[in-house]
């Protein structure tokens, strides 16, 4: 079964490069708030926290999605068919980890699907300059 990208919050420097490249991949433009991985940064609370989908075995988001835009593949990756998404945000409310993100421009959800279907693997992992995001099994 698919395993989520591992996040090492201690290593994260808060550069948002992961969000940039993800949004470019998912939306065709640079919109770090509308990415599968969104980095929550609060310098005043000392937080740099990439938030992305954990690929739950029993995903609540899939359960609540009224349009069938969210599905789980056989190998356990939760994927989103943006064309079916109406932006009702039921998945955003249902996700216990805050890992479903809103794209307010396209009025659709955005989530990490491990760059499903790409032979290169997740771009956020490739671009992270400090290996704060790694694939399962990597350090």
């Amino acid at each position, binding site marked *: 079964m698919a395993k989520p990208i591992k996040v090492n919050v*201690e290593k994260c*420097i*808060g*550069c*948002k*490069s992961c969000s*940039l*490249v993800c*949004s*470019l991949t998912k*939306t*065709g*433009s*640079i*919109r*770090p*708030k*509308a990415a599968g991985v969104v980095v*929550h*940064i*609060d*310098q*005043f609370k*000392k937080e*740099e926290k990439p938030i992305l989908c954990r690929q739950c075995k029993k995903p609540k988001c899939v359960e609540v999605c009224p349009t069938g835009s969210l599905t789980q593949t056989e190998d356990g990756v939760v994927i989103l068919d943006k064309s079916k998404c109406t932006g009702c945000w039921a998945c955003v409310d249902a996700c216990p980890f805050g890992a479903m993100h809103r794209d*307010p*421009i396209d009025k659709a959800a955005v989530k990490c699907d491990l760059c499903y279907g790409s032979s290169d693997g997740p*771009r956020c992992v*490739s*671009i992270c*300059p*400090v290996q704060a995001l790694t694939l399962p099994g990597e350090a």
Partner: protein
Amino acid sequence: MFTSQGKLAIVNLSSGEVQFTYTPQKLVDKYLGGRGLNMYYLHKLLKPGVDPLSPDNVLIFGAGMLTGTLAPNSGRINITAKSPESGILGDANIGGFFGAEMRLAGFDRLIILGKASSPVYLYLEDGTLEIRPADQYWGYNVNDTQKRLRHDLGEDIQTACIGRSGEKMVRMACVMTGLKNAAGRGGMGAVMGSKNLKAVVVRGNQGLQVHDAAGLYKTRQELQQYLLKSKVCQTLGKVGTPLLYENSNNLGAMRTNNSQHNSFAESLNAGEVEKFAEKMLSCYNCVVHCRHRNKLGGEGPDYSTLALLGANCGIADTAQVIELNNLVNDLGLDSSSTGTVIPWAIELYERGIIGDKLTGQPLEFGNFELVKSLILDIAERRGLGNLLAESSQAARFFGEESKDYLIAVKGLPQSDPHDVRYIKSFALGIATSSRGADHLRSRPTLDILGLPAEVTKKIYGSPISTDVTTYEDKEKMVYYHENMYVITDCLGICKFICHSFNSPNLLNDEHFATLVKETTGLKFTPAELKEIAKRIIDLERIINMREGVTRADDTLPKRYFDDEMPDGKTRGHKIDRQEFAKMLSLYYQLRNWDQDGKPSTVRTAELEELAAVELAETAGVSVKELAAIELEGMASAKLKKRNDGKLETAEGGVA
């Protein structure tokens, strides 16, 4: 228009009028963005001789052409106005996340005119701009202002604001974002304060389009791998800029006790500072991450702050210096100027040039509590602090003789803690810097690396002397480094990944041309970028000449000419006036300036022709017409014609 181009908003705080337009392509071709276009608009809109703290000053927030994009380290923006500290052009570059968010909200540039009748802040979101009351934020320092705005507006905003020092128009007040990032130089925070502008708040959801997403991603990956292999980038990422403290101090070139000495304690070495670091942080899309989160509740210190509030004030205790760093950041004070004028006053006191009657207390080096109280007094304009809040202009209270001990050029206190009497290229660099004594206009120090002739030939066009103490070839270095840094400032890229900043490698104009093409679709050759850089430096010169700058102002603090360095390996070195004058003349020749430092008539004519381009040409509204238009509130629905022929409402929608 180029792909990713955002709006230019012209905000008149006196009338409440806001207009939107786009910078015409012919100006983008000549000035790129960031610092370049800021200078264009400053030159065009600023009337010479105006009081920088009056409503007549023109304040410009201008993002770089690549700011906010996937180009590495592309989080920077320039804030520009006439400087209340120096009286010439003021221009400060700032990292963090603000500039990128401004572009993600659809804005490339804000031109802020006039003065609000009561405190306001600007709120920008996805192509819209509002002038909002800021009474509830006035009176707070930098951290509390940002926390309150986040509380009230949500955590997905970015803010550039002033602290109390800016409100009180302290002439070295910064514009700040986050806990540490500062548009530090030249008193841009004082200009905001003079306009009753507490903050600019941005929220960007609409994002940026790019011309060639696949190409840009590939280039980014390649450049990142290249940069991460660089030892300079690796070391900056581990210990930040304090690494330079050790270099300068070991060399014997550390400004100490107002440059009366040139070496100081090892307790401020990077390894000692590192003990206070919780984590290293980055700005937007940065691969270097040179900013410390310190254990004392702030971020930093960087090298300049560390050394100027440390060595230059005679304070060796690492924790105390970090506490002072956190304090100036929260107050919104430029650490470079603060860390220059306080030691200046202390020396003046010790020499008897100023006395207890003026200072109200004895002044001495190495007294942490004294320096801390003076910093607080400067921010609040109390007692001696009220005089020091005038920065270099405090000389009018301290007397003519006091100027002999002020480490400033063109009225701007020197930023880099490096005592430039030893490295002659560095000396020329702070003398010619268009904003006054500053290292981030050139920092030409590659000669100290002793690079082989073939390497320096590749960089500078001909081999240069690697003897840092001679006056030979130094003009070539300053010329080259100045041109390079103009381009990074125009693109919104951090100098730490830039070719020739502490390294003969890293990103150069060829890399930048590729990034520009893939992001915007615009094509520039490296030679064209160099020509743009030269044009912008000429324009800056003309702006400064309008304010009275002459060759006589391209000089150095008197001490650098007259006093020999007293300590260590650099002992005995100083700047020879005649050799300096020769070096300056050669620099003028390279710039094609006459021996008075005046740009050529051909260039002047070109710049005048460009200045005649209508500010709102794409909107079909001239500047004069803009000023004359009375808008009814902020929700004016005036339609303007865009480049693409569509009509746009003032709210940014397309009709």
